[in-house]
């Protein structure tokens, strides 16, 4: 089956730098609108792709693949593959047998878990035996779990045939460049045909393999998502080209992640002082590429190691010795899961309807001409504001504008470093959290304590606990309208951004 190419002839798309196009904005889930039916069906309940589904469903990763066949300058190889995980995370390495057990234990206890990924700690396809053994068994023993895999692409062409035999729902390829000169600045070497090949020559082979693998997967009808790491001064200018190339070959999503480089990780970029992008730079790039291609904004890069729903991590309940003792009747679990999935589906459908109605209403109202505003939201799922500021481990960032509300990104409370060097040093957790929210003008949560309230205000971020348990988009719009009515939105966004 040949997958249709998205936005097939967007002759006007290139002009659409930033901002919203009329068709893809408003309070509807703009990702889904432009997808063809066959793909929409595959992704509509997908926690990785569908913006609303990721409030209801969860995914998990198992670390079965330790080896890697290339070197990336943002990876130190002591931690998990930085392409898919949060830097600095070390996962417990599992055998395929342990991974199957753990997956089934989590699936039986957290019915919302619907997608299992193998993403490391090295490159899954550089460990074909372990990776495919895990997939083979899960396809047989837990057929209601979707499988996914991410790869640097070097060994992909040789793996496509085998991948197509399992319950593989999608493949993620990390493609940072299509030009070997750029590649030489990102990949110091690859291991290829029994030799270590350095520099541009190695990068060229890697790029060819990635593109060939992408084409082969599309030809087999397997969904392909492309990840890119944005490295300021190295590939930031180049990623629009990458977007264009992978789109024309049929990848259905392109996800740009920020480089996170710290000297203490001992990576090339960390030690050499290469900075990561600021939240604004990242968003600008995502905006400039979205005219080119469907961009995934709810990437959960920072959650690859977490088990459970948004904002929570239940990994501790499923350590090796604990799953060893669990007796799982997967047949029974599968029946229970099916019932719960149906209920979630019904709830999601009704919420989607409500949302569409609200969007319709919004269109009838007189249009504001105020500037867009970023707001942070604390939630633990279900699409409502239901988390205490102090408990939030990550925030969802939304943009409100006269066109509606759109989801922008996740920001991990303890992780985001805006590219300067002041991270970590003697700052309180609270200070770091407040800094995480740079650029936002309001934060919506169920409650805020006194101390954070003052700090947020001082940082120019308005704390708001008045919309607890309300649907996120509605609450964000309500706050936006209040701000507009209070005349807070008359300054230009440039001025605010510059001071953020």
């Amino acid at each position, binding site marked *: 089956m040949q997958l249709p190419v998205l936005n097939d002839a967007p002759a006007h798309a290139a002009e659409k730098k930033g901002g919203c196009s009329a068709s893809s904005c408003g309070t509807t889930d703009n990702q889904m609108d432009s997808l063809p039916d066959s793909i929409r069906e595959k992704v509509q309940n997908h926690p990785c792709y569908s913006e609303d589904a990721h409030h209801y469903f969860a995914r998990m990763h198992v670390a079965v693949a330790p080896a890697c066949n290339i070197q990336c300058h943002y990876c130190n190889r002591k931690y998990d593959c930085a392409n898919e995980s949060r830097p600095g995370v070390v996962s417990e390495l599992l055998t395929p047998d342990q991974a199957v057990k753990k997956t089934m234990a989590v699936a039986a206890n957290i019915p919302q878990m619907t997608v299992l990924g193998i993403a490391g700690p090295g490159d899954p396809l550089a460990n074909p035996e372990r990776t495919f053994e895990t997939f083979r068994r899960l396809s047989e023993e837990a057929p209601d779990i979707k499988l996914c895999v991410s790869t640097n692409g070097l060994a992909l062409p040789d793996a496509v045939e085998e991948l197509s035999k399992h319950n593989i729902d999608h493949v993620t390829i990390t493609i940072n460049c299509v030009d070997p000169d750029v590649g030489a600045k990102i990949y*110091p070497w690859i291991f290829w045909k029994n030799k270590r090949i350095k520099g541009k020559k190695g990068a060229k082979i890697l790029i060819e393999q990635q593109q060939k693998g992408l084409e082969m997967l599309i030809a087999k009808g397997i969904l392909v998502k492309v990840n890119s790491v944005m490295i300021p001064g190295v590939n930031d200018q180049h990623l629009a080209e990458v977007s264009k190339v992978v789109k024309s070959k049929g990848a259905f999503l392109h996800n740009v992640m920020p480089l996170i480089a710290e*000297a*203490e990780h*001992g990576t*090339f970029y960390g*030690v050499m002082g290469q900075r990561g992008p600021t939240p604004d730079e990242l968003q600008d790039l995502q905006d400039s590429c979205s005219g080119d291609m469907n961009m995934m904004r709810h990437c959960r890069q920072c959650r690859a190691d977490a088990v459970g729903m948004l904002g929570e991590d239940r990994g501790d309940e499923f350590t090796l010795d604990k799953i060893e003792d669990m007796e799982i009747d997967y047949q029974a679990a599968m029946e229970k899961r099916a019932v719960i999935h149906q209920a979630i589906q019904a709830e999601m459908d009704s919420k989607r309807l409500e949302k569409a109605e609200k969007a319709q209403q919004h269109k009838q109202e007189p249009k504001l001409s105020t500037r867009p505003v970023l707001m942070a939201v604390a939630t633990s799922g279900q699409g409502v504001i239901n988390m205490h500021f102090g408990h939030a481990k990550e925030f969802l960032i939304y943009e409100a504008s006269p066109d509606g509300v759109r989801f922008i990104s996740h920001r991990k409370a303890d992780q985001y470093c805006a590219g300067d060097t002041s991270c970590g040093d003697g700052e309180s957790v609270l200070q770091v959290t407040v800094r995480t929210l740079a650029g936002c003008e309001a934060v919506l949560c169920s409650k805020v304590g006194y101390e954070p309230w003052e700090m947020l205000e001082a940082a120019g971020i308005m704390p708001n606990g008045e919309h607890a348990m309300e649907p996120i988009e509605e609450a964000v719009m309500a706050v936006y309208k209040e701000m507009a009515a209070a005349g807070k939105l008359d300054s230009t966004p440039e001025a605010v951004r510059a001071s953020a």
Partner: protein
Amino acid sequence: MAVKIIESCVNCFACEPVCPSKAIYEAKPHFLVDPKKCTECEGDFPDFQCASICPIEGAILNSLGEAINPPGSLTGIPPEKMAEAMAELQSH
């Protein structure tokens, strides 16, 4: 004649499957080379396979006890730059 894996090995498993002589095995605290089995890849490949995929500088030594991948050769980080960064971190 044999190569040797030392304690800087991070147990990434990469070398084990590429050895033509099945000389590398998982051990605690790190992978080891069986000196009786290691052929230094003679007759199979021109380069030591283990040292051609190993990502960690200095983790594998040749029969003279020298690092096959000396500091800076894989990461491209000049050794003095690395020392500087580490000293900087330690001073905190």
